[in-house]
Structures are given as C-alpha cells and as structure tokens.
C-alpha cells in the first residue's frame, strides 16, 4: 500500500537532516551554538530568502518568495485542499468526501482561518470554532505518548455526521486574577475554567485534558528543516550552564517515519514532521483517514462511529496520497511575513529589552538550516523564528497537568513569535498562549513562570515605557 512511500520518504528526509546537521556543527559545543545563534543580528527578513512582504489580512497565506519554478501550481492545489469543506460520504465528488464520523471542523481553514490562529469562544457556551480539547488518562501508549481515554479517545469531538451523536461539548468560563506591575499599575489576567456538557458516553472523571488553540501555519518547513544536532546543542536538560533554563528535546513517535524523532510542532512539541501534524489533524479534527492514519478515529466503545465509517469507507484513504503530498508541501511552503517597523525607535529598544530580560534564552532569535531541507528552497537559510523548539517548565500557572511524551504537565514548547504582530489583521483578535487566555502580549508574558520566572519579573518590574517598547517589538514580528 502507498503507506510505504511515505515511510521511505520519511526515513530518507530524517537521515538527510541528521547528516547535514552533523557535518555542519558537530564540532561546536552546545554553548557555542547557543551563543553564536543569540549573537546573530536579526534582520527584517524573518524567514530568510523565503520571506514575503505582507502586512494584510492575507499575510500568512503566501508561497515562499524563492519558490522554484512550478511550485505555485502544487502549492495552490494544497491551498485548495486546506480550504476544502469536506462532506459526509458519499458526496457528489468522491475525492472530497469522507468527513467524520466524528469531527471538530469541516476544513483545515475552519480553525486556521487564512492560515492564521484560532481563539477560544467569545462567550461561554458558544461553539468551539478554532480550539479543541485533548484527552487522555494517566499512563502511556505503546510509544510513550499520552494514553487515550478508553471511550473518548485522545480528543473531544464536538461535532459528528448525521446519525452519530457528538461525544460532547466543552464549556470555557473565565476566572479573573488580579495582579500589579512593579510600578503599581494593576492588571487582570484570566484563567479558563473548563467543564463538559452533553457527554455521550458518561462522565470524563479522572481524565486529563488540555485546551489548545490552532496556531498560525507560517514557516513550518523551515522549522522542520532545522538539523537535529542544532536542537541537541541548544538543549540543556540538566541546566549544566546554571542559567536556570533547561530546554529539553521532546522525542516523539512519528507515524509517517515509523520511529522516534525530535518533536517540533504542537504546543508540547509532540509532533515531529509536517506530515505527522497534517495527517494527525486530518484524522482528529476532520475525521479524514490517510495512508499515515488509515484507521478511523473511533474507539472500540463507539459503535455508531464504527458502523458509520464501515458503511461509507471506500477503497483507500479518504485523502489520497497524491492529495496528501500536495497538502504537506503547502504546509511546508507557507511563507513568513517580513518584519514591519524595524527602524521605529521603540521597536529597536524593545529588541534590546527583550534580550536583556532573558526572553531570547528560549525564544531563540535565530536558527539555521543546512544543505538538506524538506524543500530545496528552505536549505541554507538563516531565519528568525524566536523559538528553540524545546520544552521548558513554565510553572504551575500555565500547567495543564497532561504529560505528552517527554513533556511533563507543566512543560511547553517555546512557541515561535514570528508573525504574531499580524494575528490581529489576519484573525481579528490578539489572543495568545495555548488556550488563548492571554489578551495581548503583556498578559502572555505575565503568565510565564517556572524557567521564565526571571524574564517575566524583569518585564513586570519595567517602567511602562519599557514595557510598551518590548510589546512594540513583539508587534513588529
């Protein structure tokens, strides 16, 4: 079956990245790599040669600037797939049916609208349009990942096709938490309080859950192409350098490669490759099978789901390999927009403050790809994602208590900061962090704890002009 093609591709690509990384920086010590990358000057071309000039509602939707001839047609078909509203089988067009039985949204763009960022519902009880709830129970699956709930699986499905009852709904209410800056200015943070309703298979007592918004899609191919050796060099699991920061690589199961690989994507770096992220979301969020995930998203206890799928299933996966290949290239080739306002004095000062406060220790300003990359255009690039792709303990305030491979209940991947200043234009909101609790950059920073406690305190005790400058810098990215 065609599954094998992806396995072969996966191993070849992973091996190539490993070899390139080893050749490039094997002689450097970890500290040397870290110091060299932090010392690299940030340019407005945040995605290197792939950067697109874009400052509009469509800023996240563009093909990389240096795309090779012929790339556009494939990319644009991938875009078509990303925007497809999948329908219940049998539909009028067989290649675009297969929705469900369980799903959260009917398209990729339903959550990643304009390839952008999701948000929690505006009002408690509103439908969840671009955010979902991951589920598990204590323990591990056969690869060391989260152990799915015996009945509900690993994700709450709040929608289903005709004839199948959705698993249930999550309701998010907010608890306001007062605080104050060092200069006495008060602020209020809000923390989500999650409850469940209409549960089809009884209570979720004892389950671990984590609310996750859909992140923006830009720059994934560059992040996927960072050599493994760079990640290993940046990691400092035992805090050997004594700076209080101990980044760890999350080693995760790659269903496409059939092996453990460093996690790069997802809020806990629980996904290694763009194809794993894409096929995982296709199955979990839309109910679409692929050669990577040929089995439908129904647990043994979910008879109606299984019956519906068995009845409608045609030959082969619901997303064909030919389509999947284009969809993955689309995801890998979405360009990072250029920085705006880099000469504004507040932005310039904000970057200095960002570094002085210690933010750059995890939000690594610069990463590089070597000669091998998932697309040739992404090779040999110096770019500015402001992430080290590593896990860091963020303290009890942000903890979800739900381990994910090596990530503990209080560890999160450093999210990239590129493009965040454009989220208001693309998606009409400025909500940040894994569950969208932070209303803007300042609140997001104030939620940091654990390894980032020192950086958070540096920000909290700045005067308002400095705080505004730091936020202006983040908004320019």
């Amino acid at each position, binding site marked *: 079956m065609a599954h094998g093609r992806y396995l072969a591709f996966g191993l070849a690509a992973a091996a190539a990245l490993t070899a390139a990384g080893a050749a490039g920086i094997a002689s450097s010590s970890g500290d040397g790599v870290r110091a060299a990358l932090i010392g690299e000057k940030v340019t407005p071309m945040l995605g290197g040669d792939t950067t697109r*000039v874009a400052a*509009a509602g469509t800023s996240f*939707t563009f093909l990389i600037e240096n795309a090779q001839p012929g790339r556009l047609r494939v990319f644009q078909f991938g*875009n078509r797939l990303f925007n497809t*509203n999948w329908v219940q089988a049998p539909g009028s067009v067989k290649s675009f049916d297969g929705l469900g039985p369980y799903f959260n949204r009917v398209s990729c763009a339903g959550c990643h609208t304009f390839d952008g960022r999701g948000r929690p519902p505006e009002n408690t009880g509103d439908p969840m349009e671009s955010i979902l709830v991951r589920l598990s129970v204590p323990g591990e699956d056969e690869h060391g990942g989260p152990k799915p709930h015996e009945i509900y699986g690993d994700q709450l499905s709040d929608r289903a096709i005709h004839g199948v009852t959705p698993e249930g709904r999550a309701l998010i209410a907010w608890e306001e938490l007062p605080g104050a800056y060092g200069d006495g200015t008060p602020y209020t943070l809000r923390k989500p309080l999650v409850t469940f309703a209409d549960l089809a298979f009884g209570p979720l007592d004892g389950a671990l859950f984590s609310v996750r918004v859909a992140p923006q899609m830009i720059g994934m191919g560059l992040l996927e192409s960072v050599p493994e050796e760079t990640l290993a060099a940046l990691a400092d699991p035992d805090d050997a350098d004594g700076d209080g920061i101990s980044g760890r690589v999350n080693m995760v199961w790659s269903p496409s490669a059939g092996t453990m690989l460093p996690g790069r994507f997802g809020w806990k770096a629980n996904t290694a490759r763009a194809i794993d992220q894409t096929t995982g979301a296709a199955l979990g969020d839309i109910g679409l099978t692929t050669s990577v995930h040929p089995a439908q998203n129904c647990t043994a206890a979910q008879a109606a789901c299984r019956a519906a799928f068995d009845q409608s299933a045609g030959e082969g996966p619901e997303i064909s390999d030919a389509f999947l290949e284009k969809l993955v290239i689309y995801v890998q080739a979405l360009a990072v927009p250029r920085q705006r*306002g880099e000469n504004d004095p507040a932005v310039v000062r904000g970057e200095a403050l960002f570094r002085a406060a210690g933010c750059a220790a995890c939000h690594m300003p610069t990463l590089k790809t070597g000669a091998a990359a998932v697309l040739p255009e992404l090779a040999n690039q110096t770019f500015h994602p402001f992430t080290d792709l590593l896990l860091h303990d963020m303290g009890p305030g942000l903890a979800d208590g739900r381990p994910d491979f090596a990530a503990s209940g209080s560890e999160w991947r450093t999210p990239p900061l590129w493009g965040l200043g454009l989220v208001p234009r693309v998606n009409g909101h400025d909500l940040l962090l894994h569950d969208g609790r932070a209303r803007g950059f300042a609140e997001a920073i104030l939620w940091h704890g654990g390894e980032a406690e020192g950086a958070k305190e540096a920000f909290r005790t700045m005067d308002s002009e400095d705080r505004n400058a730091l936020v202006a810098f983040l908004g320019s990215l």
Partner: protein
Amino acid sequence: MPDLKTNLLLGAGAIALTQTLTLWSGALVPAAAAAEAPLSAAASEEGGEGGEGGGESGGVPASYALASTDPAQWSYDASAVIDGYVAGARGQYLAAAAAARTLQAEVDAFLEAPAQETLDAARAAWVAARPAYLRTEVYRYYDGPIEAVEGGLNAWPMNEAFIDYTKDAPQGGLINDPAFEVSEAAIMARNQATDEADVTSGWHAAEFLLWGQDLSAEGPGDRPFTDYEPGTPAADKRRAYLKATVGRIVADLDGLAAAWDANAPGSYATTFKALPPREAIGRIVNGMAVMTGHEMRVERMAVALDSGDQEDEQSCFSDTTKMDFVYDLEGVAAVYYGRTAGQQAPGVDTLMKTLNPERAARIDALFGEAMTRINALGDPWDRVLASAPDSPERAAAEAAVTTLGELAGEMKASGTDLGVLVQVPGL
C-alpha cells in the same frame, strides 16, 4: 451613468479605503501605529479572495524600482503611460459601477414583482454586469484601493450552505437562522469570519441568491422565483439579503471609481500619480503578471483541472466561468495596450517596444495566443472539469494554462527591461 458628485461624496467607502492604505503601508510603519487599527475591521476589510485568492502580493515591497549604479538606466519617460493607466482605471470602475446599477434596478424590479420573467431579467443583468467588473481585476495585487474591499466583493470559493438552504441542508444558512437579522453590517461582519469559504457577500453571493445551487452538469442553478415571494420569514429575509448584497456591490464600485478619480483631492489616483514613475510602473506590471500567472492560470484554471471537482469554478451557479477568463484577460490586455473603457492612451507596450522590441513582439504574440486558447475553452467550464483526463477539452485547457504561464513569464522578465521588481513566486 453614476452621478459624479455621489462618487466624490461617498462616505463609508472612501473612509474604508483611506484606512486600508494606512494598513497596507503598515509594512513600513511602526507596529504601534498599526495596532490602532480596529481589529474586527482589519480582518473583514482585507480578506483576500475566498480560498485566499492567494497570490496577491499581500503588501508592497519597500520599493518596486530596481537599483542601478547607472543613473541613465531606466530613465525612460513613463508619465503618459501612468496617466493613461489612472484614467483607464477610473473609466473601468465607472463602467463597472454603472453595470452594477443596472443589476440593482433589475433586482429591485424582481423583488417588486417576483416572477420567472423578472427573475430571468435579474439573472441576465448579473451576467451583463460581470464583464465590466472582470476588466477591473487587473488593478489588484498591490496596495490599490480594491484590496480594501475585494474580500467582500468577489470572494470565492464559497460554501453556499452558509447563506441559504441547499439540497443537503434544506433549513440551513443564515437566511433560515432565526437568530440572524439581515443587515448589510451583519452580512459583512460574517464574511469569511469562521472559515474562508464562509463567504456572505459580493458577486458570488448575489449569484447564488439568484440562481441557487448548480445541481446539473448541463445547465446552471435553477432556484424558483417563489423563494422571493414575500410572506414567509425565510423569503422575507432572503429578499432583504439579496437587496443588501447588491447594494453593497454598487457602493463598493462607486467607492473604487471615486478612489481612482485624479481630479478628487486626496484620492488614491492622486497618490498614484505622485509616485516616482518606476514605483507606479512596478504596480502596473505586478497587477498584470499576478492576474495572468497566478490568479487566472493557477488559482482558477490549474487548481480546478487538478481537482476535477465540478464546483471548482468561480461562477459555478450561473455557469459563466468561461466568461470570467475572457474578460479578465481582456482587462490585462487593455492595461498593457492602453485601451481601456473606450479610451486609447500609450500603454506599457509603447515602453517595451523601445526598451526590448524582441520581448515586446513575444508578448504581442502571446496575448494573441492566450486569447485564442481561452476562446477555445469548453463552455461551460464545469463540463471541462468533468471530462476525462486525456480528453480534448482538458488538453485545450492545459494549453491555455501553458500559454498564460508563458505570457506571465515574459511580464515577469520585463521587469528587468523596465527596472521594476515583479513578484510572482513559483511561476
């Protein structure tokens, strides 16, 4: 003809345009200033085409003018070409607004007396109004005024079930949602807000409201006129929805015509004419190259051919997609040759004949070949999409894709002759 005074005084549209110019130049202004833009307005004003209508340049580079150490290089006189382009844009948008006004009158007459005859007349007016609009699409893909409204004016592909009932959802859509009160503001607030395909406004929303779903391979959609007989809650809302949608199309086009009025102080046209010549020429050539090489060739033609989905056509309810190709290319050629809205001005062709006569000759030949190939496309377009992989219909369409690619490639390469940056990645 629309009243000039109305255009000049047009409030809402003009304000929106000014805001967006600020936003777009936001590529180069401090983030703090950009943050002042209202969040919800930013998202709804600037959506691209449904499915992102990708390919839009998305912003402008710091400069379209290529740098040279030789001051004499690219010192050609472009003023007549730029003046002609501005006058042409003004004329094309005036024509589009006038055609849309005729559509509006026929829709009003239909709503006044719903019957097959009046519905047919309204449909015919929609078809008759499209060519003038399609000829303006070449004024996209830089920081022009269309970018402020395009997402609300011509977005596709659209999930029609979001607006009204469909075969699979007989009680679906905003029109059947008791909680949705029809108003222009409510319609615009929902445009592409929850999904890119959740298009609520513009030409294709009006098209769906007039024709209904295209459930036939042979002909267009066939919504009954009784859908608009007043008296039921759904019909009353549908009537209000159609009227608001068409009204917004007219208002947007009036606003665009006003923005291109070089005699109106502070208009986009005056800004455009004040640009350094090669900054203006860069915008002109990018609009032509992206329209040809990305929008027509890939977004609308190649993607549809690759999917084989009959619904992958821009004007799927009325089955007039082939017409879209013809008049879009006509608009591009009109700009290149300076022949717009019945006027003749020096076009980009006059510059190319001097700067690179060989390329100018190739572009002439490719324009002719592209028009021939597009005229030879099967009609309706959905029958081409439904045809077998090796059918003559598909071969003809692939030939058009190839020629459009060659034409756009020459346009992109003409940047080195004209001294401007032309951005069409992955062509």
